[in-house]
């Protein structure tokens, strides 16, 4: 029998703490596949953030640093400046990156830090139990927007990829979705590009991945994928927002 798909070497052989159907697991797998395919396992250093992916370092068989809430791009900057030959990636959720860590992500992009950022956008705070995220959709109910997000008092969802695509220092900014196999495949290609860019010294790359949180959305995993497709993609259009320097 010829292998078509096997478990990536760069994943540790443990059961993750993620809820059933959580697309964090898909994102992890795609990153691990990328590390394997690019042959960079021995020189990759990951940065875990605060959020559901706080234990990411348990699941990747590479060196890892766990960062304070929102600060992963700064930590990654510190690592990369000491070890420019290493491949450094930060893995952050929407609360971490788009709320408390907004300054760090924008300025890492401004500096054109030669790092890769994987940004999980699931429109909610998972770790702390389903509170409103900066990416929560208008009208979406969460424990802190129990009547639905009201733009009048709670503002509008923040669009990180669009925002960062205006930053000259950013080299590659793209948004993908993990709601079906075809999109997962596209996301994989984007992630691979984001790591390849770093290997080639091209600078800052960020891949935003639309993800589900079936537990806090209160849905089955399959319904969550459907909800993502129907509600998130219209608000967060997919695509590569920036490839290459300038503008």
């Amino acid at each position, binding site marked *: *029998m*010829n*292998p*078509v*798909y*096997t*478990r*990536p070497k760069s*994943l540790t052989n443990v*059961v*993750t703490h*993620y*809820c*059933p*159907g*959580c*697309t*964090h*697991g*898909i994102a992890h*797998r795609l990153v*691990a596949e990328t590390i394997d395919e690019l042959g960079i396992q021995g020189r990759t250093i990951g940065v875990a953030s605060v959020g559901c992916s706080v234990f990411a370092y348990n699941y990747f068989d590479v060196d890892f640093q766990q960062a304070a809430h929102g600060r992963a791009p700064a930590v990654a900057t510190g690592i990369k400046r000491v070890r420019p030959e290493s491949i450094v990636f930060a893995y952050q959720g929407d609360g971490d990156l788009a709320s408390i860590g907004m300054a760090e992500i924008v300025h890492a992009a401004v500096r054109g830090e030669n790092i890769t950022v994987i940004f999980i956008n699931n429109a909610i705070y998972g770790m702390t139990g389903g509170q409103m995220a900066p990416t929560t959709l208008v009208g979406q109910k969460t424990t802190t927007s129990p009547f639905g997000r009201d733009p009048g008092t709670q503002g509008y969802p923040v669009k990180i990829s669009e925002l960062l695509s205006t930053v000259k220092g950013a080299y590659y900014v793209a948004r993908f979705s993990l709601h*079906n*196999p075809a999109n*997962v*495949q596209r996301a994989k290609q984007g992630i691979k590009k984001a790591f390849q860019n770093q290997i080639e010294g091209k600078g800052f790359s960020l891949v935003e991945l639309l993800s589900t949180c079936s537990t806090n959305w209160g849905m*089955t*995993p*399959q319904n969550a*994928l459907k909800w993502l497709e129907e509600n998130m993609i219209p608000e967060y259009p997919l695509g590569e927002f920036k490839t290459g320097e300038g503008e």
Partner: protein
Amino acid sequence: MEKRVRFNEDHCKSCELCIGVCPKKIIRLRTELNRLGYHPAFVPDEDQEKCISCALCARMCPDAVIEVFRP
């Protein structure tokens, strides 16, 4: 018989994302529980021949449970 699609059933959380994408509808959940307390997904031996090795199930699996082979 060599299996075309193999499940690491101990790691499965029965999220059913694989079931949702299988074009041949051959993935099922076991009635027994695994060590994690979930009904793990599997393809019955008699359906292994029906598998077309498309690996959509593996691509959607959040827990890297599934490995796929082609004869």
